């Protein structure tokens, strides 16, 4: 049974159809790359899975839990990194992580062990008692990642999780994701860096204007154009962005 399942989900904001009859499932151990141009509905889809945005129609389940009916129960199973981490900037990282750990029901011993090791691995242990308003984008991203991983979730929803990370931290996160997938965690991962998607994901779904444009393994996606192409070429072809050279030529630079 899929750990994440979206059936015929739609969501509109006024006249804008952000998600349109979307069907998506992520199996245990699967790392699904959710790709699409800006405004294609990736972040909205992720927020719908989190139960943060209510869909107009369709159903969403996480590990069999109906997200619409039991959002709090569903969130206990998920680790989430938003596109822009909204942190309480005037708390220290330790205070914030304490709050998140308490929300996930972790005991203080569990928080100390789990958060401690994640802080150390992501080289944040020396900043743990600093107020987060002074943190760089990468440091905020690391705090958000630790928040998402601390309770050993069964499902990870990661919206551009490598944004702002230095190469070492990015490599560590990639390793962690591989390891977690091996342990049966389902990961839904969005990125605009297609090389990363190619390297990390064992399944890819490309969406455009809220609907699925293509899905399959990275190799299946690459084979869609009928010749050996890069993921970027296929992505641009499928999402209508293949005329980039002509556009740049038309610019009077």
């Amino acid at each position, binding site marked *: 049974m899929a750990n994440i399942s979206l059936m015929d989900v739609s969501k509109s904001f006024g006249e804008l159809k952000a998600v349109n009859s979307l069907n998506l499932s992520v199996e245990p151990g699967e790392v699904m790359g959710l790709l699409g141009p800006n405004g294609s509905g990736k972040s909205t889809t992720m927020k719908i899975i989190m139960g943060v945005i209510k869909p107009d129609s369709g159903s969403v389940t996480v590990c069999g839990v109906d997200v619409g009916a039991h959002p*709090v129960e569903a*969130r206990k199973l998920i680790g989430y990194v938003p596109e822009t981490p*909204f942190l*309480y900037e*005037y708390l220290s990282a330790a205070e914030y992580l*304490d709050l998140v750990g*308490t*929300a996930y029901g972790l005991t203080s011993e569990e928080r100390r062990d789990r958060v401690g090791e994640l802080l150390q691995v992501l080289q944040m242990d020396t900043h743990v008692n600093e107020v987060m308003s002074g943190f760089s984008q990468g440091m905020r991203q690391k705090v958000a990642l630790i928040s998402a991983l601390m309770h050993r979730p069964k499902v990870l929803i990661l919206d551009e999780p490598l944004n702002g990370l230095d190469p070492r931290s990015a490599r560590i996160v990639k390793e962690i994701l591989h390891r977690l997938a091996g342990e049966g965690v389902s990961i839904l991962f969005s990125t605009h860096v297609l090389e990363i998607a190619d390297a990390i994901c064992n399944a890819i779904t490309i969406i455009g204007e809220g609907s699925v444009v293509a899905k399959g393994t990275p190799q299946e996606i690459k084979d869609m154009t009928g010749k050996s192409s890069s993921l970027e070429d296929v992505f641009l072809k499928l999402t209508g962005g293949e005329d980039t050279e002509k556009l740049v030529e038309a610019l009077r630079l």
Partner: protein
Amino acid sequence: MRPRLIAALSSALFKSYLRASRGGRISFFSKPRVMLLVDAASFLIPLAFALWIMGMVPEDYTAALATLVAKAMIGVPILMTSAVIVAGLLFELGQGSAISSSEAVNWLPLTPGEYVVSSALSTSFVYSEVLAIIAGLTLPLALRSGLISLWLPAMLLSALSLMLGALIVEILRSVMNRVSSTVYRRSGRLGMVSRLVALVLLFVVIQLAFQPYLLYYVLGQLTTGVEVFWIIPIVWPAIAMINFTTGDLFRAALFSGLSIVFVLVVYEAASQLRRIYWSPVPISISYDSSAEYIPQASSGLRLGYNPLEAALALKEFRALLRRKELARFIAIPIVIVVSSMLPILLSPGGGDIKEPIFVVSLIIPFLVPLMFSMITIGQEGKSVINLLTLPIKPSELIKGKLAPAWLISGVATLGVVLGLEFITPIGLINVSEILMTAFLVILINSFVGLGVGARWPDYNVGARSRYVSLTGFLIGFLLAGLASLLVFTPVVLGFLGGVESVLGFSTMLLFPLSLIVGCVVLVLSYVFCRRGVENLLTNF
């Protein structure tokens, strides 16, 4: 409901709030446990003070004191609810997501009810000092007048009313965000202007409603008109207290019980609204249906501004109109004018106050340009980097940044002085002298304000954002006060009369003297301002 989670979240929100209002510092006082000690001190110090005062009050005054204490006990619960709502409107609702928004936790496994209770507890804790001070001040009075049996229920009901106010703020928080986004989406520019007008009106009405004489009037009405007021649930704690004072314990218990039920109903409403508006609706504000890019800054009336200065000025005006946290700054001049004029105009014997009322109007050129120019750099927040990385000359930044301060203060001064001339005429020559000196002071104080704002900006965006550091605020206030005093004194002395016999020279010379002093101070203030801006642009 998980008490541990509620404790953790309310503590986090509280700490976050306190630090944000103190420039992001982790101080000794931003710990909830220390705040309990502060609350204890807030109780004990007024208690000691009131005990000392009571020692000096003669026995004859006991009966009068008892009446006063009874009135106070009735008023405290409703005062607590109203104070928290007012503070909420002024400080809580404009908070950024970095401080207390549910955006930071809406993906966590916590229920809307848990969030609402935590947030309301945090708000109550912030304002608990007020209750502690009132409790400390009123306890000796209640003891002395033999009304200690009223004091305890009054304090308990006041604590309940504090929580009620905090829960109402939670409702306002949800509704205002929703209304804001709905208004924006539906009606673009018109919606934005109507929201600004609504916010400004709200601030003005609330500020005026909390003038002491008006409060006293309302309280008087309340104690004499219980029959009518009982239908308003927010005054149930006060009605319970009225019944405690009259010894009707059944009705006192009934309204106390109803007050608790009302708090629970408000909690439920706040939770339901938080459930509905758990996540902010993404909005895209559209001002024009056309998708075409039309450059705007260089078009239109320039009034001696080059395109860059016009673009900067336009940006400043847009910030004032579009950012709801800046609405209070627009409301402040209106509040200053109305609250300083109203009591004088409504006082008996209005015919004798022509001159004083015109002198009071000078508060506008003193305060308004200073305030708008002091905040103009700090309100940029992190986006100030845009100004610093663009090729902008100091003189261009000064002209662009000060345009709103000049326009708003100029129009306000002109409107008030001409309005007063219409109501209580003092003659065209006097009015012209006042206006010319006032415009000079507007220029001076705007330069002083920008000079201070550029040297001591506060880029923290959050609760009670000042946009200028406390040091800067004090220096700006002192410099502008001194400059205003220097420039206004001659013309005001001439205006009020009697100076010839004291100083021995004609009042005819006083207006030119104001102008000469004003020009000298103007040059000095411009140099102060320019150096501050130059420093900002080169040594960020």
